[in-house]
């Protein structure tokens, strides 16, 4: 279970303080598919970064399975990101010097999985997202939809319980977007917790629950 407690994040830009999150209290159950919707600047990506252990709160806390992530060392946080969480970004964020197979195998590489096991699993994951025939392709040789599917395969690399998507369909056309949502729904059926940030109402409608945000606050 993921729980936030009075989660607050303040960014300081020179003299100006920007309150990105204000006292956010949110509970996400294991196996839930939740969409966080809201206009840009509402703080949804910041919330996602906090839940995803990419950033630390200014005050308040994020609990993942009752562990206060704010109190963990950088190495521990890296471990959680690696083992428990799979990230999908709007910009795909693939490593352009590596091919599809290597990109997908990368989180396993950091987890110390042996080369053979790694490549075999990467191949299976690429087949699962429909890119079985694209293993040798570099990201730049693939369409936006295909790149996002590669990113999903990468997110599944270490078999995480939580998948976090920051506008995962934001950079692809409708058809590719639907395919991505199909994949995410499939992953949710497998028992994974899916947290997706979107400003697209249609995408949000496909989630089991939607939370709306405005000005750094979660609306009831």
């Amino acid at each position: 279970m993921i729980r936030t407690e009075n989660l607050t994040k303040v960014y300081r830009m020179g003299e100006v303080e920007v309150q990105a999150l204000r006292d956010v209290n949110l509970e996400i159950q294991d196996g839930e598919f939740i969409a966080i919707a809201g206009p840009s600047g509402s703080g949804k990506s910041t919330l996602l970064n906090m839940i995803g252990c990419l950033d630390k709160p200014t005050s308040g806390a994020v609990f993942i399975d009752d562990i206060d992530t704010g109190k963990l060392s950088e190495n521990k946080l890296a471990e959680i990101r690696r083992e428990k969480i799979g990230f999908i970004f709007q910009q795909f964020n693939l490593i352009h010097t590596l091919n599809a197979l290597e990109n997908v195998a990368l989180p396993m590489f950091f987890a110390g999985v042996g080369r053979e096991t790694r490549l075999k699993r990467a191949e299976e994951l690429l087949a699962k997202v429909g890119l079985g025939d694209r293993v040798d392709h570099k990201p730049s040789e693939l369409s936006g939809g295909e790149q996002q599917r590669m990113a999903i395969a990468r997110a599944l690399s270490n078999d995480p319980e939580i998948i976090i998507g920051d506008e995962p369909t934001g950079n692809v056309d409708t058809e590719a977007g639907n395919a991505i949502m199909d994949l995410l729904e499939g992953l949710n059926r497998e028992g994974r917790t899916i947290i997706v940030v979107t400003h697209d109402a249609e995408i949000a409608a496909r989630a089991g629950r939607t939370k709306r945000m405005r000005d750094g606050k979660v609306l009831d």
Partner: protein
Amino acid sequence: MRDEFLMAYRSIKERKGRSILTVLGIAVGIAAIVSLMSVGYGMEEAITGELTKMADMISVIPGEISGHGGYVEKGGFTDRDVNDLQRIWGIKDISAMVYGAAEVEYRNKRLPIFVLGGDTKELGGFYVEPVGLKEGRWLRENDYKGCVIGDRVANDFFDEVIHVNDKLIINGDKFIVVGIFEKASTLYAADVDPHIFLTLRISQDVLQTEEIKYIMVRVYDIDEAEEIAEEIEETINDNHGLDDFANAMTMGSALEQIGTVFNIIRVVLVCIAAIALVVASIGIMNTMLMSVMERTHEIGVMKAIGAKNRDVLSLFLLETSVVSLLGGVAGCGLGWGMAILISFVVEMASGIEIAAIPKPGVFLGGIAVAMIVGVLSGFYPARKASKMSPVEAVRYG
């Protein structure tokens, strides 16, 4: 490890142009060390190697060699000095020599040339045996009007080449060339090539001096050379009533002195090379910093998908190691090429033959230095990369 190398390779390949420049930067630094050291060893070998062959020689000069390598001449030896030396036990040959500059004329061209005179037999032993004659014969005691000339006197000094039986005018007296030396090897080049050789008596006449400027002594037993040298100094000093009139130097002590000089030369060469390396290391640091900046986003992504600081640090360090290794190896190749080129240029310019010596230690040292410098200069950028906040890094670019 294979994958780490693969990633380093990909990343180096991705930035091919800049990687090549960095490799080149290191290579030039290492090449400077390797070439200078190889030529240095070659120079040392060329000189000490031949000196070792003459280990039974003691050279006696009237004067003092100061600690700083300077030489203070104190006049000349007399016939009595030479005669007294013959009584010292253990001496095989003694050759008294006179030298000085004389005005030499050949076919209406006049030049100042160094004239060297000595006992013909001994002088022949010192120079004719190792160098050899190209034309004619060596001097005889009764060669009152005969002279033997070095290769450069014959071929380079005058407008026309001098042959045996040609006439030279030395300080106003006519001489006939009876023999011409071969071009001498490195060690003898300075002694033989630019000189004119006469008998002792005639050279004293020509140079208008009674003094002997130089005595060359050969001993039977090399192990006794130092002792004999001391005895020579004492004998001559007694004759002149001075404590430090004569300076007898064995080839052994000459070798030691040369060794000291070469150590100094080597330190200077290493300092020059070190400057080149500092420049190279700034280059590496700059390249790696740029690489880190450029890949901020990539580093962020890696951290987001679970890379620890340590993983990022080792990836970047491996990358600089690979670049440095390539630079080191390329530097050794380049350095060896430069060493051969330097030897060639020195030989062309001065006629002194120096064969650069490839020492495995120099090459291994070169590669090791490249790696050390590379990793040290890559460490700061790599650490900077590893410390980046993932969220800021992902957002970058």
